Every structure is written in C-alpha cells, then in structure tokens.
C-alpha cells in the first residue's frame, strides 16, 4: 500500500544508538538496540525506555463526545472520570474486534483514543462513520504526538526527578497533564509490559530532549533503551493480547476471554451501541458452549512455538498458537493459544505443539505467565 516507511521524531537518535530497525505497521521502528533478552530483563528489574510513536492518537471532543464513544465502543465510557483511562475495544456490528484501545479522558468533554498503529486508520474511519448525529468532533492527532514509555520498577523514581507532577497520586490507568524535563506532556500510568510505568504523550519536537533527559536520569539505576522485540515478550509473559494475534475481526471480546470489557448496562444512548446484538449472543455462547478458550502453554523442552502452529493431543489438532516466544523470566518457551474448551483446563495432560512435524510436550496453564509483586 504505502511506499517509504514512516519515521518517528526519534529516528536519528535510534540510529545513533545502533538500533536494529524493523518495519512495523508501515513505521520504521527499533526492534532492539542490543540483546533483546537484556532489554526484557531491564524492564522486569530496573527500567526500559521505549519509542511508541507509531501508536495512533485520535481526539474526540464536544458536548456529546462521551455519547459518541459509548455508541462506538463496547465499554461504558461515561464512568471514566477526568484524568482516568480505560482499556476497551471497538467492534464491528457482528461483534468482531476491530481493535483494542485505551481511552484517556483529558477533560470534561475531551477524550483521547489510542489505537494500535496497524489499525489506526480503521479506528479513525469507524469513529468518523459512527459520529453521525452526535454533537462531537473526531480529530486525527496521529502526527500531533510522539509517545515515549518508561517501564519497570525504577521508572517512578526516574520520572519523579524530571517532573513536578504528583506521581504518587497518579494511579494505574490514570493520566494527567504536566511537564517532563521542562516541556508539556500528558503523563499516563499505563503500559504493555506487566510492570509499573508511564507513557508520555509529547509534541514530536520535544521527544528527543525528553528521551535524553530520561536516559541521563535513568542510566545510573539501570535504564536502557528497549525495542519492540522485548515489548512483545514482556506483554506475552503478562498475558496481554496483541491485535492480529489473540484479537481479530473473526473473534468477539468474549471469544478472547475479555468479555469483561463489554458493558451492556451503559449510561447513555439507552444502552445501544455498535455490535450489541451480536455481542449478547456471543456472551451467551461463551457462557454455555464456548468453542475455544485462550490458554497459556509452557514448554517442557526448548523448541519455541510460533503463531499459527497447531496445538495437538493424541495426534489430533485441538487448537492453534497465536503468540509464542522464549520467556526470559521463566527460562522456557511459552505460548498463548486458542484451544478447544474440552482441553483448555490448566493441567490438561498430553497436550503438545506441532513444531515442524514434531509434537513437543506442553503444559496448559492459566494466564498470565508472570504477575509483578506489588
């Protein structure tokens, strides 16, 4: 479709750091700077710095902004207070997932929707298409922001040294405007790693200065730059879904084990929203006769399962791997897979993954693989 990959405001900096770059959803992004395993471990034990400027920001404003979001998304956005955030999804009329999102309420009638890079245009188009009749404006702000994430147990201390914002008062899934290293930023306590951390939405021209300030403040306590490769293994250990893997238009939130994000009791629009009828049926199916369930798999051997590999039992295919990688924390390969409900209970015996023709034994476990100690 597109030709040259898009570059973030930090592109020159990544190259000066010797990053291995990769094409991701049309963007040239850092895959890793050195060892992806070291980067993963830094986030789990110290801190890591990520450029996530490929994420897609869409601003929704106006008197009926919340009614529009309640109509277009599956969550009850009316219950999100100013300065708070909500993990939610946008679905098709048939209940299929178009994307998973975080919605930040920036003001009384101002919301920022953050979509996956690969789906940003789809989400923007859907929000515009669904905005008819609502007194609200949908604005494409993808180019208005750079996004830097600092993740890991040392990140509050590092960020505190660079901001006057009240980080202690900033709860998980909250966001407030403040200054970081002297420039304005939306500071959000969100992330995709399973660790404490922050995501900083900035003007692109401020990104390099903030990155350098965070690097300078964080290096003494072990902060290192981190690429998308370790972001994937971090979210996988934390059992967080990735669009295109665990989430697709062929699945509803209930199929993905995330039915809790769907709120049928909505405050606005008399409870009507896009996909409601189909999702009610999907909820019932998930309750009474789920076709497949999302499970964790932990290898007994060392060969790594990859997306698309078959899950097998007694020589019969019972499911499919959606994500798999060697887990630095567990020291073993792990995977997320959709498995026939009859074989999805943790501890189910005799389950394997077909790795290039060999059925390697795997243990069925509940997700997540890793949960941080609070």
């Amino acid at each position, binding site marked *: 479709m597109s030709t040259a990959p898009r570059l973030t405001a930090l592109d020159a900096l990544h190259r000066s750091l010797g990053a*291995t770059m990769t094409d991701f959803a049309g963007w040239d992004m850092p*895959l*890793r700077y050195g*060892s*992806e*395993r070291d980067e993963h471990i830094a986030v789990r034990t110290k801190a890591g710095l990520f450029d996530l400027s490929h994420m897609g920001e869409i601003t929704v404003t106006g008197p009926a902004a919340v009614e529009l979001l309640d109509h277009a998304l599956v969550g009850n956005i009316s219950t999100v207070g100013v300065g708070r955030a909500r993990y939610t999804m946008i679905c098709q009329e048939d209940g299929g997932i178009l994307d998973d999102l975080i919605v930040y309420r920036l003001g009384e009638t101002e919301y920022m929707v953050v979509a996956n890079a690969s789906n940003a245009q789809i989400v923007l188009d859907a929000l515009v298409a669904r905005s008819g009749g609502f007194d609200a404006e949908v604005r494409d702000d993808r180019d208005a922001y750079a996004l830097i994430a600092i993740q890991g147990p040392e990140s509050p201390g590092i960020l505190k040294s660079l901001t006057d914002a009240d980080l202690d008062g900033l709860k998980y899934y909250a966001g407030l405007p403040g200054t970081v290293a002297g420039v304005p930023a939306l500071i959000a306590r969100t992330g995709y790693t399973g660790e404490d951390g922050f995501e900083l939405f900035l003007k692109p021209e401020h990104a390099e200065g903030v990155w350098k300030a965070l690097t300078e403040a964080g290096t003494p306590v072990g902060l290192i730059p981190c690429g998308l*490769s370790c972001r994937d*293994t971090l979210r996988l250990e934390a059992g967080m879904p990735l669009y295109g893997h665990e989430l697709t238009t062929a699945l509803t939130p209930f199929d993905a084990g995330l039915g809790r994000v769907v709120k049928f009791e909505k405050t606005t629009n008399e409870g009507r929203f896009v996909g409601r009828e189909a999702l009610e049926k999907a909820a019932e199916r998930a309750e009474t006769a789920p076709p497949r369930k999302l499970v964790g798999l932990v290898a007994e051997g*060392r*060969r*790594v399962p*990859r997306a698309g590999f078959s899950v097998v039992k007694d020589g019969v295919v019972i499911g499919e791997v959606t994500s798999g*990688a*060697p887990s630095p924390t567990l020291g073993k*390969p792990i995977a997320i897979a959709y498995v026939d409900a009859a074989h999805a209970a943790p501890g189910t015996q005799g389950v394997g993954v077909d790795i*290039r023709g060999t059925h390697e034994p795997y243990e069925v476990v509940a997700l997540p693989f890793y949960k941080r100690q609070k």
Partner: protein
Amino acid sequence: MSNPQQLRYTKEHEWLSDAVDGVATIGITEFAANALGDVVYAQLPAVGDTVTAGETCGELESTKSVSDLYSPVTGEVVEANQDVVDDPSLVNTAPFEGGWLFKVRVAGEPDDLLTVDEYTAFSAGN
C-alpha cells in the same frame, strides 16, 4: 564487525575453518548472529551424522524466529559443541570462537565457498 581472514564463508552466512587432519570447524558469522538476535536454542547435528553441503542439518532458534542451519561441506560429523547446546548465547557473544557449532570430517566441499573479502562484500549488500 570484521570477519576473520583465515576462514571461508557461504551465502547462508556460515563459516568454515581450514581442515586440520581432515576435520573442519563450522559456525555462523557475526552478521548472521546479529540478524538472528538472541539465540535461545540450538539443534545441532549428532556425532556420526552425515551432512551434505548446502543441505539443512539443524536449526537455530532466536526470540523472533527460527533459522535452518546448513552445512557448508559434505562429510561426517565428529563433534557438536555441547557448550552451545547448554548456553546458546555463545553464538551471539563469540560466533567465531566459543560459539562454533560442529566439526566435520570433510569428504567434499562445493566450489562456491567465499573468501573473506567476497563474504564481507556479500553480507554488506544484504
């Protein structure tokens, strides 16, 4: 990075030492190790296996992908590097030294092995 002068190379990014008493040592290049990322699992040919030049004889698995391992020469495997099986990160940290993969009693070699200069130019063009 620099590729050692005394080795010969393949377009599959393997290196081959000169044979000593008919036995050559084989590994992957630093270029290949960097492209793979952290190697987490190495399946090497077993001692006694016959390997054939240009054909797969094992696999190297990294965080992001799995790559077939090709033998640059034909012959019998006389040793596999157990240190790499135990600690595959040796392939990343010392690809030309402690991260060697296996040794072959050479029965035949193809005529398209690359010199260091040819390989350096080839990998730079990738």
